[in-house]
Structures are given as structure tokens and as C-alpha cells.
């Protein structure tokens, strides 16, 4: 027991170093700044969109702002996440890292934590801009913070997906697979909500419902559509969402760790 604690601390310190390095690497990336610049421009532009509408300027800024944060942070997670492991292998820098007394799964967790840090900074900057725009136009509501919190939970899942695909395949295939996961995650609810009620055959309805339960549902974490109507999430929503995210992320990281362990990197 006495030897386990320092080892744990060492692992934490190693993961911290890798996370910090990942963060530095990401913020030097042009993709990060291009996406951030687009997002900030869209957030500012949302006020112009609001003026095209009638009587709901604040609503347009809020809806467009939250959608921008959600969409662009997802793109950042995908485009930075897909290369996290593969580029290390391709550049052969991973051999240098793994030659040190560092477990592969700790390397993986470090990369994951680093990307989450990048996304936290990215989201925080966008929230700051959105809040400033909303304060200027008199539509600020503190409910944007929980909404962004739930967006971040979705990003945690998406990052884990990108990391998993990055551990098993090339960046191009990873990008396609992660984008597909994102699209499926945001459209799968239509199976239960729209398709199933239109099917008459009981077996087909059960098949569609079963498919819905198998496929990921990222939309279930979003409260963006409630914020503008000042509707609070239902009691018990927060801990269920946290647990759902934790379970999904754990599963994906375990699969990534397994995939990385099986690779011949020595």
C-alpha cells in the first residue's frame, strides 16, 4: 500500500505532463484558431441575424449562439481528436514516450485530458463572447451556463470517440467515423420520435425501437432548446446526464486502451 500511492501520484503527474503537452500542441494548431475565429464571427454575426427577425433579437442571438458553441466545439473536438494518437504513431514520437516507464493507458488518458482542457478553453472563450453579445443586447440569462455544461458533456463523449478511432485507424477514416457518430448521435432520436409512430407492423416498430436503443443518442444531453423558454431541466436530469456521459466515456476509453495495447509499438 505504501508503494502504490507514489506510483499513483507518478502516473497522475505523467498524465498531467502529457495533457499539458497536448494542450500546448493543440493551441499551436491552426485548426484551433480557424474554428475559433469562425465561431466568434458567427456569435457576433448572430446579432445581425436577430435584426432580420421581428421582435425576437435576443432569442435569435441565444439560439444561434448556443448552436454555434455546440457545432464549432464539436468540430474542434473532431479535428484535433482524430490525430491525437495516430500522428504520434506516424511521427514515431510515441516510441520515445512509451520507452519511458509510462503505461499506454496513462498516455491515452493524458491525451484525452489534454484535449478536454483545450475544449474547456475553447468553450469558455465562446461563452465569454456570447455573454458579451447578450449583455450588450439585453438578453443575457444565466441559464446559458448549464446549457454549455451539457454541451461539454457531449464534447467529452465525442472526444472519447475521436480518440478511439484515432487509436485504431488513420485520421481521414477517424474523421469520417467520428462525424458519422456525431450525425447518428443527433439524428437517432428521430427513429423513436418520428419513424416508429409511422410504422404499422409491430415487429418493424420493435426493430426500429431496438435500433434506437443501440445507437448513440447525443441529443438527449442537450438543453439548448429549453434555455430560450427559461424552462429548467427536469429534476434528476443532471446526475443522469453525468452518469450517462461517464459510462459512455469509460466504455470508449477502455476500448481505446485495449486497441492501443494490441498495437505493436515496441
Amino acid at each position: 500500500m505504501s508503494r502504490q500511492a507514489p506510483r499513483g501520484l507518478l502516473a497522475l503527474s505523467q498524465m498531467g505532463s502529457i495533457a499539458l503537452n497536448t494542450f500546448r500542441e493543440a493551441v499551436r494548431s491552426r485548426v484551433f484558431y480557424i474554428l475559433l475565429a469562425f465561431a466568434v464571427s458567427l456569435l457576433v454575426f448572430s446579432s445581425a441575424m436577430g435584426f432580420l427577425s421581428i421582435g425576437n433579437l435576443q432569442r435569435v442571438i441565444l439560439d444561434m449562439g448556443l448552436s454555434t458553441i455546440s457545432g464549432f466545439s464539436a468540430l474542434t473536438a473532431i479535428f484535433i481528436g482524430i490525430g491525437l494518437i495516430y500522428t504520434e504513431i506516424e511521427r514515431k514520437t510515441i516510441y520515445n514516450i512509451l520507452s519511458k516507464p509510462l503505461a499506454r493507458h496513462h498516455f491515452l488518458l493524458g491525451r484525452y485530458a489534454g484535449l478536454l482542457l483545450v475544449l474547456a478553453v475553447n468553450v469558455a472563450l465562446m461563452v465569454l463572447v456570447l455573454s458579451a453579445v447578450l449583455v450588450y443586447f439585453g438578453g443575457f440569462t444565466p441559464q446559458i451556463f448549464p446549457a454549455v455544461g451539457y454541451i461539454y458533456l457531449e464534447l467529452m463523449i465525442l472526444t472519447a470517440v475521436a480518440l478511439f478511432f484515432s487509436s485504431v485507424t488513420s485520421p481521414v477514416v477517424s474523421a469520417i467515423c467520428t462525424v458519422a457518430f456525431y450525425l447518428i448521435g443527433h439524428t437517432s432520436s428521430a427513429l423513436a420520435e418520428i419513424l416508429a409512430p409511422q410504422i404499422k407492423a409491430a415487429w418493424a416498430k420493435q426493430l426500429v425501437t431496438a435500433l434506437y436503443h443501440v445507437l448513440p443518442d447525443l441529443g438527449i444531453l442537450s438543453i439548448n432548446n429549453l434555455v430560450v423558454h427559461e424552462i429548467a431541466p427536469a429534476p434528476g436530469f443532471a446526475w443522469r446526464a453525468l452518469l450517462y456521459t461517464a459510462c459512455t466515456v469509460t466504455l470508449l476509453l477502455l476500448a481505446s486502451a485495449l486497441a492501443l495495447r494490441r498495437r505493436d509499438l515496441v
Partner: protein
Amino acid sequence: MTVRTAIACLALVALLFAMHGLHGGLKSLYDTYPTEFRSYYVPSSAYMKVASLGQRNFLADLVFIWSIQFFDMYGPLVRDTYLFHTYDVITDLDPRFAEAYVFGNLFLSLDRRWDLVYALSDKGLAADPNAWIPAWDAGSYAFFYARDYAAAKRYFAIAHERNPSAMPVQKMMANALKYAGDYDLALEYWKGILRENEDSSAPHAQYFVIAATRNIHDLTIKVDLRTLQAAVGRYRAERGNYPPNLDSLAKTGYLSGIPADPAGKPYLYDSRTGQVTCQSAFKFKGKFAQW
């Protein structure tokens, strides 16, 4: 400058001119298309929900902005159908989009499609149990434009139930009841409006007092005339002739007493025709006094 660079520059300039010319040609062809076919296609709600990738409110905002910019591009023959579809999609994406109901109803009212106005309003009322504006809007269109006083009564009753303190709603409810012929209930509403406003210092309270006083005056006459006329009718049906005077209705038990009009003058009665009339003039004149 080498010959090759000069040729490249000339080619670039030629390309720019060609692009400009082609764009002009395309634009002139584009302008010949019928305007109503340019932009009215909005996919189904189910498709839009899926295509929104979870950002339904944002997509609803975009379709709403598009619709208010281009609603007049719809041809008059198809405008109502397509506008209803557009606002149906917007309110499917965000069922609590208050402005969509307001402007959807406004645009649909241009074609006098009251059935669609009522349908959109019903949807808004079902989507939000606290919303009263869709009922207020539908009631106003029914009352002022469609002259459908039964529908106006129904919608103002919903608006009043959801927002009991709004004085304009009470006033319109009382008016709808009056025009729908429900004089007794209309009288009760106006008496309630008078009670709430006569000692009030709220803005417009004096206006409501004046409106209530005039309506109570006219409705009292209407109610009295209707009661007296009904008693005369019953008297004749049972006895075969009109009563000799109004007092005989009280004496024979058809009425408990004979009222005077609000000015204190007795109602006039013609025993040959059985008609009861009022000496005092109605406060409301003109076309709208013919209720």
C-alpha cells in the same frame, strides 16, 4: 514582364470578363422565373427535425426569418397553403415560438383563411398551457375581421381563463358575448369590469369605466326587452291574446315585476302588436349598434 506573364495576365482578365458576362446572362434568365416558385418549398417537419441535428430552435429561427423576409413572394393562389405549412413546420420545430404564432396568424389573415388562423392558434394554445396571446389573436381576428362571434367568444374565454387580470381581454370577452347574443353573461362581465375600475387609479381605468357604463346601459335594455318580450309571447301562447298592458304580466305571474329602463323611464308597450320598446336611446350608435 515576360511574354508568358503578359499572356497569363490577359487570360486572367479575359476569364474575369467571361465570368462577369456569364453571371449577367444567368441573372437575366433567373429573373424570368416565376417568383412564387423560387423559394416556397419548405421540407416536412419530420425532415427538418432530423436535419436540425438537435438545434431545432435555431432552425426554427432561420425558417422564421426567411418566412418574414419572403412571405410576399408566394403567389396569391398558393400563399395561404404554403404559409400555413411554413408556420406549421416552424412551430413543430419549436412549439413555444410565440412570435411564429403571431406573425403566422397575421400573414394567414391577409388571405382571410380564418380556419388556418384558428388551427395555428389552437396549436399554440395546446403547446403552452400558459400562453394566452394565440387565443387573444384568434379572438381578435374572429371578432374584428371574420365577424365570427362564436369563435371570438371561445378564444376570448380561453385568453381570459389564462390571464384573468388583463382588462382588455375581459373587455373583448364582454364584447364577444354581446355580439354573440349572450346578453345576460355580457352584462355580468361589464358589471365586473365596472367594479374593478371605478375606484382604480390604473392607467386607462377611466376608459374602462366609460365603456362599461355605456355597455351596461344598453345591455340592461336588451335584457329587459328580451325578458318582457318573452313573457308577452308566453302570455299570448297560453291565453290566445296579447296582455292589455305590461303590469298585467306581473299580476298574472308571468314576471315578478316590471322593470324600468336605466334612465328610469317605463318601457313602452303596444297591445295590438305585442311589441315592447324603449323610450331611451342606445348609447352605441351606427353600424356596430345593430347587435
